[in-house]
């Protein structure tokens, strides 16, 4: 495979963006990522984005997004109705063909404008499941209960994930939930979706993120320490939660195996865990041990800009590699109810 690296990353998130539209949120992150990449906007070979129409409640969310990237003269461009981590995958494939040497990837969404948890029930089987309006939190709680029952873990383990996330987020300017909290205080809060409490559920977040990819010598020439994508793999599982073993993530395991996660030490991992139990479950599927710093940014429990949350995971790992804080890291992205679909990206710095 051709050497491809993340050479820049920009990201903004807030709990509720009261004035700016999606396009206005994309503009500064795209501008920042492109400027930091050292590649002129007009020289970028390919552009790909990820978004979800149902977040804005109208068709073609991505069409006006084009206004933010300056698509004139016309550009090579595509879009996935998926988390922008998959837009990055599409861009990585385009770079592998040799057709282009660089790509801009962005994702965006304002989940504060509607009822995110209800909206996501429209992802479920339209004939058998969606008519019941299971919110994404209802479905996650089923998985959390199954996981706790199967592993003997308890709500304190969940609170420990949440507390670490909030403490890590103290250093993250994009975090919308952070604090020096302790586990006992968290456990004093009421259970809202058994066994989950509010701190176990990712906060509503509006945000946008952008990444620039470059191949081989171009990456080396524009970035002192590019974050090389050593492998990027994704897998999907059957849809109905009733036909899956919810106590594990088989698709994450398969993707991690194909990506060779276990072939070397993992300094840092950023996981697309929107619920506390998902982090534990994913760490097991990825085979991560105690030496790995998991979600040092605070992860999605600190900020969950839907449709770029997965891309942000890749960006956060890349940022640490480029800064020399890590040598080998794993980024994970997820889609669908109860972690139905998962992507694993192994990034590495070279000294």
């Amino acid at each position, binding site marked *: 495979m051709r050497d491809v690296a993340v050479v820049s990353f920009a990201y903004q998130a807030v709990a509720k963006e009261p004035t700016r539209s999606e396009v206005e949120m994309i503009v500064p992150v795209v501008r920042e990522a492109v400027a930091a990449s050292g590649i002129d906007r007009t020289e970028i070979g390919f552009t790909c984005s990820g978004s979800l129409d149902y977040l804005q409640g109208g068709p073609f969310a991505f*069409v006006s997004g084009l206004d933010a990237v300056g698509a004139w003269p016309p550009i090579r461009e595509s879009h996935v109705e998926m988390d922008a981590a998959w837009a990055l995958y599409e861009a990585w494939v385009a770079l592998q063909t040799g057709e282009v040497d660089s790509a801009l990837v962005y994702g965006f969404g304002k989940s504060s404008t509607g009822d995110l948890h209800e909206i996501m029930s429209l992802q479920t089987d339209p004939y058998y499941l969606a008519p019941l309006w299971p919110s994404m939190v209802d479905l996650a709680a089923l998985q959390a209960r199954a996981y706790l029952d199967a592993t003997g873990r308890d709500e304190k383990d969940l609170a420990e994930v949440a507390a670490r996330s909030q403490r890590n987020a103290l250093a993250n300017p994009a975090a919308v939930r952070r604090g020096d909290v302790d586990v006992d205080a968290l456990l004093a809060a009421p259970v809202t979706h058994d066994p989950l409490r509010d701190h176990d559920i990712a906060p509503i977040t509006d945000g946008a993120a952008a990444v620039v990819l470059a191949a081989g010598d171009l990456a080396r020439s524009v970035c002192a320490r590019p974050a090389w994508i050593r492998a990027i793999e994704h897998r999907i599982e059957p849809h109905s939660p009733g036909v899956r073993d919810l106590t594990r993530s088989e698709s994450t395991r398969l993707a991690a195996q194909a990506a060779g996660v276990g072939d070397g030490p993992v300094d840092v991992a950023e996981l697309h865990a929107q619920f506390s139990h998902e982090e534990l479950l994913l760490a097991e599927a990825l085979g991560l041990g105690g030496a790995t710093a998991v979600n040092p940014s605070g992860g999605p429990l600190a900020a969950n800009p839907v449709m770029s949350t997965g891309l942000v995971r890749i960006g956060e790992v890349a940022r640490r590699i480029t800064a020399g804080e890590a040598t080998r890291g794993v980024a994970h992205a997820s889609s669908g109810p109860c972690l139905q679909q998962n992507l694993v990206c192994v990034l590495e710095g070279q000294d």
Partner: protein
Amino acid sequence: MAGKLVGVVGVGQTKHRAANKEVSIAGLVRTAAKEALDDAGMTWADIDAVVIGKAPDMFEGVAMPELYLADALGAAGKPMMRVHTAGSVGGSTSIVAAKLVAAGVHERVLTVAFEKQSESNATWGLSVPMPFAPPLVAGAGGYFAPLIRAYIARAKAPRHVGHLVAVKDRLAALRNPKAHLHMPDIDLKTVEESLLLWDPLRYLDTCPSSDGAMAMVLASERVADELPGPVAWVHGMAMRSEPTMFARRDQVNPQAGRDCAKDVYAQAGIRDPRADLDCAEVYVPFSWYEPMWLENLGFCAEGDGWKLTESGATAPDGDIPWNPSGGVLSSNPIGASGMVRFGEAAQQVRERAGDYQVPLRTGKALGHAYGGGSQFFSMWVVGRDKPAA
């Protein structure tokens, strides 16, 4: 074309119709996918990855339906992607799938596109009022009619040319058993007397609303060479996008379409598309888009598109047949319509187009799709023979 060779080794599609009540959305996509697998002589287990495309999720009311469709498409345990680039999506989905093979990531990719328009109402789905934006409430026809009027004024085209396309494509569809509309009695008078919807578009100048799905199996050279069936080799593929609105944008003859065509022709060694292609399957959802795209795609000089149409050159027995399958005017499962164009072009060079097969001279055909406000374009050229090294 960049990367490794890609071949279309299997094609399948549903019978398109106004409302397919016999199957669910899952049943619809699986029908097309199974036919493509059978055509390729493959089973579900042979497939490495699935790439699915469709137009806005609001057309069926299912958000990110690839999640629900994973089982029906045999994707469990495999990679699956969902592309959405507006009306061009069927074309761009084909290209994303083809790039997985061109990049050497996979060797056997199943790609599927669909729309089940009877589950909702596309004009409503396209016209949801949005904050801070003027309400359109016009659907696609209301959006494109002013551009068509601008074309007519610019090219000084006689008003009956659109109706000629409406008749030509419906008569062509009579030879295609999968086409939605079969109107054996259609003639110029029927079209002229149909209801005026958006001047100059009459009811029969517009595409139908269809339920339908299209699927293809794409394979590496190594895999394709070992299969007994005919292969359509991808000679070039390209996508271009430009913003919807800005001052002095030419929406009648968009730059993105011209650039995209230039790119794909250069990859495929096409100098004169009218002479170097045996046929073209082009996204013509409103009759007037045939002459407009004839110009945009370089089949003639600017201003001459309507003359080409009027001369009969684009009819099935003309020198450059456009939409011998009946085109979008005869079947429009929106999200699939672009892939139908790409797949029909492949069927022609595989000589699998049945009663609407065109004679092959150069053995090359164009598949084309566009979307949004005439701003997203995807195209490929496929050939009977492998591209010259």
